[in-house]
């Protein structure tokens, strides 16, 4: 089956066409992403109204390009999928409404995909990873550890109680005047710095749960930086290195705890899967490999273009749901908040009917 996927929950306007074979294997026919980074840069973060305005201006063109690159006709599609949340509601409305209109015009099924579910299922598109697996999702908007047991069957093992990890990198970059987005900029500075110079806390470390908290780390970093301001180039590099090391240590501790919970509740995971832009950080990537190795598993890391927000993951999640007969009505609502635990699975829908 062939599915068009639309993603507009944050600052990427994206559309893709993906094919799912009868054997469950996936193939990306096109994957077009337009980043709005330039439009948000001077604000040091994503501004919701600016994002929504950019999505509505660009989306139809991006869809046309995705269809053209896939050499697909709308009539040949088996379904239209869009991220219906969670995310910035203005953008979600643009993507979901556009998908509904296309579905209506061609009388195709609509699949309202949970953006987090799309991240969770990407490893099945890229690596045909089998259930159950443990997902570490970390981006500018999300930080969660999940047990993925099946399509629509997710167990949240832990997550951040305040800032997302990517948000932490963005705020660090903003504080130090490095620019936006902060992840790659902080990583570059960290490579030149001394990670031991500043004693920053490792919040939540040692706890039995798998939750994260970044606000204390953020405050500690700011206090250390204010103490020595004005900052030299070496100060900035050392602050970045110390911050990144604290994140790496926190990720190691929290993932170990998450994997322990996974083993207790579900058994051995088939893999540790990472998703979201944060996994592009090489120091974090290295610790993910180590943690996976420790539990006798392997790290599945989709390529960076499929780790960050994209249309292919939405199309794929749509195809996985469509293959199970999970479609949505044309009045389905967009959601700013939509925890994965509330995503319906096959059994739920059957029970509701």
């Amino acid at each position, binding site marked *: 089956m062939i599915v068009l996927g639309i993603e507009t929950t944050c600052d990427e306007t994206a559309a893709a066409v993906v094919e799912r074979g009868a054997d469950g294997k996936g193939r990306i026919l096109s994957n077009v992403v337009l980043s709005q980074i330039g439009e948000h840069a*001077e604000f040091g973060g994503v501004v919701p109204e600016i994002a929504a305005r950019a999505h509505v201006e660009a989306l139809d063109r991006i869809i046309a390009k995705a269809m053209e690159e896939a050499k697909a006709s709308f009539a040949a599609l088996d379904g239209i999928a869009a991220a219906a949340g969670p995310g910035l509601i203005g953008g979600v*409305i643009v993507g979901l409404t556009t998908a509904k209109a296309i579905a209506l015009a061609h009388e195709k099924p609509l699949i309202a995909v949970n953006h987090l579910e799309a991240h969770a299922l990407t490893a099945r598109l890229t690596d045909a990873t089998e259930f159950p697996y443990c997902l570490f999702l970390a981006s500018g908007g999300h930080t969660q550890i999940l047990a993925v047991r099946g399509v629509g069957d997710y167990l949240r093992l832990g997550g951040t109680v305040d800032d997302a990890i990517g948000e932490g990198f963005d705020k660090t970059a903003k504080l130090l005047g490095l620019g936006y987005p902060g992840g790659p900029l902080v990583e570059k500075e960290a490579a030149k710095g001394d990670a031991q110079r500043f004693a920053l806390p490792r919040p939540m470390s040692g706890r039995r749960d798998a939750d994260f908290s970044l606000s204390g780390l953020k405050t500690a970093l700011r206090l250390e930086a204010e103490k020595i301001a*004005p900052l030299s180039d070496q100060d900035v590099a050392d602050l970045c290195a110390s911050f990144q090391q604290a994140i790496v240590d926190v990720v190691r501790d929290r993932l170990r705890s998450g994997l322990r919970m996974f083993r207790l509740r579900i058994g051995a995971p088939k893999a540790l899967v990472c998703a979201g832009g944060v996994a592009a950080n090489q120091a974090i990537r290295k610790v993910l490999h180590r943690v996976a190795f420790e539990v006798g598993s392997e790290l599945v890391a989709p390529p960076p273009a499929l780790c960050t927000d994209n249309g292919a993951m939405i199309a794929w999640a749509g195809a996985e749901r469509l293959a199970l007969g999970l479609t949505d009505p044309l009045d389905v609502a967009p959601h700013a908040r939509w925890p994965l635990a509330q995503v319906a699975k096959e059994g739920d829908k059957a029970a509701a009917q």
Partner: protein
Amino acid sequence: MRVLAIDTALAACSAAVLDTAGGRIVGSESLPMARGHAEALIPLLARLMKRSGITFQKLDRIVVTTGPGSFTGLRVGISAARGLGVATNIPVVGVTTLAAYAAPYLAEKSDVPVVAAIDARHGHVYLEVFGAGGRTLIAPRIAALSEAVRVASETSARIVGSAARTVAEALAKSASAPPIVDARGAPDIAWVAQVGAVVPDGQAPPKPQYLRAPDAQPQHAASLPRR
């Protein structure tokens, strides 16, 4: 020409099919609502097309209101119209809510100005003034309510739009004759279709008319000083 018109920019979720050959509205539905357009619009379109006995492929043009209005609301309509456009290759044109409000009055009597005023909150309105023959005297912009009142008193105009009553009430204190006021919460969808049908091709892209910048300030101040 068969035209599908969509309006979700203000206090209604509306759509209509116009056949210009007979000059008649083939089908129309308008639901008053302050929010919920994103859920309501596509099912409304499905009902309308079915009742009108027409398929999307038979349409010649899609018309959508581009604002000014609710930022979220106008994006619902524009996303739907442009989604239909990309899916069917049918041209999509935009009509402002101000022009759609004014159209029936200009059509009835074109030599008396029309002041179109839509509530922009915080003591402001989105304003456009149409003169003889529908010519724009004041281009669409955001203006203080007091300015709209002054303009309306100078032009002895008819006043239309969601803020028409507010303007007229302020005006009543000074004006000799009461103005003609049309203060419905959204433009008549039939007139959205009529105006959209006569727009020249390529002249009115379906782009949002916000008339107001996003509420965001650059944040350079947050950074610590560098040596």
